[in-house]
């Protein structure tokens, strides 16, 4: 008890030190000088409360942790027999089909804002599924993933600005260019060990952003590029007046009244189709030899190499495919926003996508999709807490790694179960 008491006192004291100076005083800039202001009493009470909680927790640490361990698992499924594989697969595919059907119906029942948000969710799903290949399956920590997203978005914006290329042509070009960037970057850096790779990709992402910011004559610098065209449906535009020669407009062709919603819904459906393509393509790839090679390399590099896998080729394929889907997402993002600037491609964006993958469960497609939905929608629902969004993100990432590094819905590999012979 005395040892605990000493430790508890120490922890409580440390809590006080790390919270009070930063929370308890407010620096106010007044012109060129700064003044210090104490903050209101509630913050001090909060700090005190935190100190007391830490003290009590550390004092009775053993008892608390012991009783937590004895509690029946919070997850009611934990004690159940693991579901049979075929049944689980069936359930998963039914669930996925239901989700897709729901997603198709969604724009016709929801408001315009909700559809717009759903498009964003789909873009994040594409990004997260792409990053899932790199981080979750191949085990390469890529902190500069947003660079490929930027390449996709900017190639569409620039192509349409300088060459008047439409969305449908820019889509494969943008994705292809992003993949090419992935290939070119990946080739030298994939020899590096995990954490070095993370930092190099982070540096690469920053370099791309700085270049976009400073090559003002080409990219418009911090002002970004505007006037990115909307996608067309077989030459039918979704605007009230036709912008381009030779195009017809959607509402006139079908003889319906013009509505701004058509465009939003159309964009949503494009994003949906692309997201489904992404999910299906990656699902197929996972079962192909290359997908197995990714996982083999993640699990044990030396063993995989000794079995004749080319480390560079396998890693490079994962990196390139991940970049490809980021380019996809980037193109859709550019046409959704109609305007892009380097602001949208900061490191935090990479961290958010990574957080989605980590929260969902690295490697697990279902988990990643659900996490993407949750991470994008929750801050919208809890608007009054929106400033705490990133704080909670950071904390959630740490807690997830400490308690459940495999994610909310861990990946389960397809495997053969041998029947016991009686």
């Amino acid at each position: 008890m005395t040892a605990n008491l000493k430790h508890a006192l120490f922890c409580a004291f440390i809590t006080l030190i790390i919270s009070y100076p930063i929370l308890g005083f407010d620096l106010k800039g007044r012109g060129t000088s700064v003044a210090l202001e104490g903050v209101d009493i509630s913050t001090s009470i909060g700090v005190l409360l935190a100190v007391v909680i830490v003290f009590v927790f550390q004092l009775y640490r053993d008892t608390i942790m012991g009783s937590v361990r004895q509690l029946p698992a919070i997850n009611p499924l934990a004690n159940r027999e693991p579901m049979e594989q075929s049944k689980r697969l069936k359930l998963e595919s039914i669930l996925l089909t239901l989700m897709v059907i729901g997603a198709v119906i969604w724009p016709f029942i929801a408001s315009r804002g909700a559809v717009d948000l759903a498009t964003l969710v789909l873009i994040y799903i594409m990004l997260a599924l792409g990053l899932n290949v790199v981080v979750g399956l191949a085990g390469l920590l890529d902190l500069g993933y947003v660079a490929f997203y930027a390449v996709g978005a900017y190639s569409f914006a620039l192509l349409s600005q300088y060459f008047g290329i439409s969305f449908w042509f820019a889509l494969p070009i943008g994705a292809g260019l992003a993949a090419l960037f992935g290939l070119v970057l990946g080739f030298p850096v994939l020899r590096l060990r995990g954490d070095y790779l993370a930092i190099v990709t982070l540096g690469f992402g920053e370099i791309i952003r700085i270049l976009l910011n400073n090559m003002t004559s080409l990219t418009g610098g911090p002002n970004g590029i505007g006037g990115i065209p909307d996608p067309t449906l077989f030459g039918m535009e979704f605007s009230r007046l036709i912008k381009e020669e030779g195009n017809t407009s959607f509402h006139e062709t079908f003889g319906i009244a013009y509505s701004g919603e058509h465009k939003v819904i159309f964009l949503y459906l494009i994003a949906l189709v692309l997201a489904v393509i992404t999910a299906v393509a990656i699902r197929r790839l996972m079962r192909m030899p290359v997908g197995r090679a990714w996982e083999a390399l993640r699990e044990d590099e030396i063993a995989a190499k000794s079995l004749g896998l080319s480390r560079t080729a396998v890693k490079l394929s994962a990196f390139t495919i991940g970049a490809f889907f980021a380019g996809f997402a980037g193109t859709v993002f550019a046409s959704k926003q109609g305007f892009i600037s380097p602001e949208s491609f900061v490191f935090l964006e990479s961290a958010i996508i990574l957080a989605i993958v980590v929260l969902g469960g690295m490697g697990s497609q279902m988990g990643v999709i659900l996490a993407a939905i949750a991470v994008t929608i929750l801050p919208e629902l809890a608007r009054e807490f929106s400033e705490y969004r990133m704080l909670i993100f950071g904390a959630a990432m740490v807690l997830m790694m400490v308690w459940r590094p495999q994610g909310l819905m861990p990946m389960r590999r397809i495997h053969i179960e041998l029947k016991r012979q009686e």
Partner: protein
Amino acid sequence: MQDFLYFLQQLINGLTIGSTYALIAIGYTMVYGIIGMINFAHGEIYMIGAYTALIAITGLAALGIAWLPLVLIVALICAMIVSSSMGWAVERVAYRPVRGKHRLIPLISAIGMSIFLQNYVHLAQGSRNVGFPDLIEGGFRFGAADSFQTSISYMQITIFITTLVCMTVLSLFISRSRIGRACRAVSQDLGMANLLGIDTNRIISATFVIGAALAAVAGLLLGMYYGSIDPLFGFIAGLKAFTAAVLGGIGSIPGAMLGGLILGVAESMTSGYLSGEYKDVVSFGLLILILLFKPTGLLGKPEVEKI
């Protein structure tokens, strides 16, 4: 002559920045040397050090204490205490539970911690940058009065001297003291050190505390040098310092010092002769090149991959 003076000015500026990078880089390199993880939140700890120092300085000014050495020393001590506690707490909460798991797990945990700390200060102190009072003014000037003059400000001299003192103390501490010896032993072989009765958990905590304290010193110095701080300024500085650590050979303390100086000079030469906007590109480019061609850095030992 003019060109030479200009070059000299860039060199001095570069060495000033570089020596503070070196201070931050030591935190990275010591932690990496012992537990082999990148402490991503180290830049945030440096930022918190700078904020605490500013709070202490303005607090003392409000109390009417203006004797410069006292103000600086009190600010330094406050910053070091808060940063070290933060370093200790971060290790305890976010790193110790995931130690020994797969390589990516501590790194992701560290990124989460970094985001958390950034937003913690952001929420408490606002996102706008706050001005750091210019406490040490004036300096020496060289060169003819009608042409370009090389100047060394007293601030730069303070930075040099403080860094030098810190480095010397650290070197002595690592080579002479009991904890320093234990640190070296743990970094060579953690398991063996544990068997020989070294409390490795305590030593790992100690490295975090030492690294954080040095980062706090850098926070105070760079805050005064740049003249303003904001919650995001730890991120880039942390990345630069990490580059410095890798450049010198991660895990090696003299390497971190050398790497910091080289990086600082490279940066100031870029902004002096090319354009200030590209200095970040140069330092990240340098990082990528080093990792590609000499991943062990200048003074690092090659790492043997064991099966």
